């Protein structure tokens, strides 16, 4: 994996590390596209606070924004979530493979002639 992929993942995980931002992402996941006001409805935040959160999500590439007249419409960029999901799956698969080999190594060790008196 290239360097910038690691940085991108950092941005994604950082963006998802905040409950307000996860709320916005979850709402967009349900609706696809929403005006900023609807996506952040119910969050006890100032407009400036909401704007800050949206910017973090945009920087992570999780959300894109387009301006329609006075409306700012947010859209979930779902492939970015898949990138994070792939990262977890990759590690899971490496561990599963590695532990299978570990089991073989340990079994082989036990069948070696004992070189100490332990048990």
């Amino acid at each position: 994996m290239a360097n910038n992929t690691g940085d991108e993942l950092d941005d994604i995980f950082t963006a998802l590390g905040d409950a307000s931002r996860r709320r916005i992402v979850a709402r967009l996941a349900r609706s696809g596209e929403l005006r900023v006001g609807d996506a952040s409805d119910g969050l006890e935040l100032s407009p400036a606070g909401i704007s800050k959160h949206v910017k973090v999500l945009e920087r992570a590439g999780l959300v894109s924004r387009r301006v329609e007249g006075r409306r700012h419409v947010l859209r979930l960029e779902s492939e970015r979530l898949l990138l994070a999901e792939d990262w977890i799956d990759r590690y899971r698969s490496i561990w599963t493979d590695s532990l299978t080999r570990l089991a073989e190594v340990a079994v082989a060790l036990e069948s070696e002639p004992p070189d100490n008196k332990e048990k």
Partner: protein
Amino acid sequence: MTTTPELALDVQQMIEARPETVFRALTEPDLYARWFGPPGSAVTADEMDLRLGGRLGLQIHIPTVDMTVGIEGFYEVIEPSRLLVHTRGSMDEDLVTTVRFELEPQGMSTRLTVHHKGFVDPVDLEQNDGGWRDLLASLADLGRALEEP
């Protein structure tokens, strides 16, 4: 930025060997190199300084892309034949994670559980309460569904 929200995965493996033997495979460089790493990779354990705060240094060579990745970590918990915890950071991903190996005797066998989690910001911890991976998974599903025409 190396702080990430809680990110965790659990993998379990039954091993037909005693915990003492499994623990050796987790802590002796020659043995470690025989099992750890992505398929097809060649692993060298440069350093396994098995004491609290001691350094773990690995080189993983992946021949298919002719790339070597350096990994380093530090031991945080060492309970021989029972528990081993160390941090893990790689040079190509700016993340520090924690790997926990738990060994439980099952007759003459061992149940090994690996818990691999991302470095947790204490501020984020209370907000995550373990559910964020589920959230991510369901969001990814939703995302896939949204992509369908």
